[in-house]
């Protein structure tokens, strides 16, 4: 079992899609929301995703394919 802490950023149409609900159905992962702020056309959700390491990778790739930006909770850690 692995656990990943991520931030989803939604813009435009992706705001209204139930992506977090769906990802728990489509994949063998459990999501747990910790913080969120959603406006009408923009929002972010900070959550924990539990599951098998590779299953989490697949689940997050699927979320990204829905037009949601997926980042580690700590923001960008690569510096130039």
């Amino acid at each position, binding site marked *: 079992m692995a656990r*990943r802490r991520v931030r989803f950023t939604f813009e435009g149409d992706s705001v209204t899609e139930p992506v977090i609900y769906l990802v728990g159905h489509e994949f063998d992962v459990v999501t747990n929301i910790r*913080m969120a702020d959603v406006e009408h056309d923009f929002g972010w959700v900070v959550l924990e995703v539990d599951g098998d390491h590779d299953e989490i990778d697949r689940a997050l790739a699927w979320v990204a394919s829905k037009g949601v930006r997926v*980042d580690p909770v*700590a*923001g*960008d*850690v*690569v*510096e*130039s």
Partner: protein
Amino acid sequence: MTYATSLACRECGREFPLDPLHVCDFCFGPLEVAYDHDGIQSKISRERIESGPRSIWRYKDLLPVDDDFIVDLNVGMTPLLRADRLAEQLGMRELWIKNDTCNPSWSFKDRVVAVASSRARQLGFKTLACASTGNLANSVSAHAARAGMDAIVFIPHDLEAGKVLGSAVYNPTIVAVNGSYDDVNRLCSELADNRHWAFVNINVRPYYAEGSRTLAYEVAEQLGWRAPRQVVAPMASGSLFTKIHKGFQEFQRYGLIEETPVRMIGAQAEGCSPITSAWRNETTNIRPVKPNTIAKSLAIGNPADGYYALKTMKRTDGGATAVTDPEVVEGIQMLAEYEGVFAETAGGVTIAGLRQAIANEQIDPNESTVAFITGGGLKTSDAVVDHVTQAIPIEGTLQSFEAAFAEAPEAVGVGG
């Protein structure tokens, strides 16, 4: 002995021990070092600071490290220059340049890495790590060498050799990741959770970030124990910017300087300005961007401390600027030509941002202002190489010189 007592969540306030932790287990908010303020107050004084070493360690009462673990490369106490010639160009009355290009690895990152590496040593780590293509990697590699620790640096596989040199010379392990920026980001976040390494800007980030406060301490001390009225500082993650303000506040709290307001102005490059965009749109919701600017050291599309930088602007009646790449080059040139300081692109962003802030009336040209120049120019020489003075070719004879001089007297000499 350090007065650091715990790590506190910036969102919910929950406290955690001084471990290698960076987010709150409950709300995932970022953690910040908390101190025993009474203990500090009872010990600290101008005299005590003035009798300390000429480095950031003169402020060790305010840093989260015990004496025995300090990794000392003599970072800090960089010059604060009164910049009258540049001030005149900009129509300002009192401008100061904090020249942090004068650090051991030529950027302000030495301040944060000095604290992170020291605390890492105290926490029992043997390895320092980071993902960086420039300043951060240079500083981590240098500090690991100085401390006799191992360093591991992650870079994108297509980075130019010239950029790697400033780290490679200190002989760290360099891992070139064949993947996108996002892949490197994800990999390093996972490694920080899995390995017993001190990833300076991930699992020991709360300690790391504290190092930036020393910039404010030094400026206040160098100004003769007072804060400036206005500050311009560059923003990537936004950490430096918020910590400079925190530094002035702490000095006020401990009675080391008078309680005067300091207006905080942040500077970004237009090609990567998520914090400035949020400021202009009057929202605290930062929209991540894909960076596209010559100011690579500020190219963080998803800034960890952007929200806190915005709060700092709001609280200080400050603001944010965003400047174009040509303005960045002009900023570098102005600083070099009028004050003799050669900055990297981040410094160009600061000077161009200062100019913009004056034009927008975010800065009062009659009030004391400090501009933070955070990295040395040789790191980004490509940015200016096509814009600087070219040599005048002559033969080694007086005649040839005189002929060239007649053609371009202003280029050859002053006053003939």
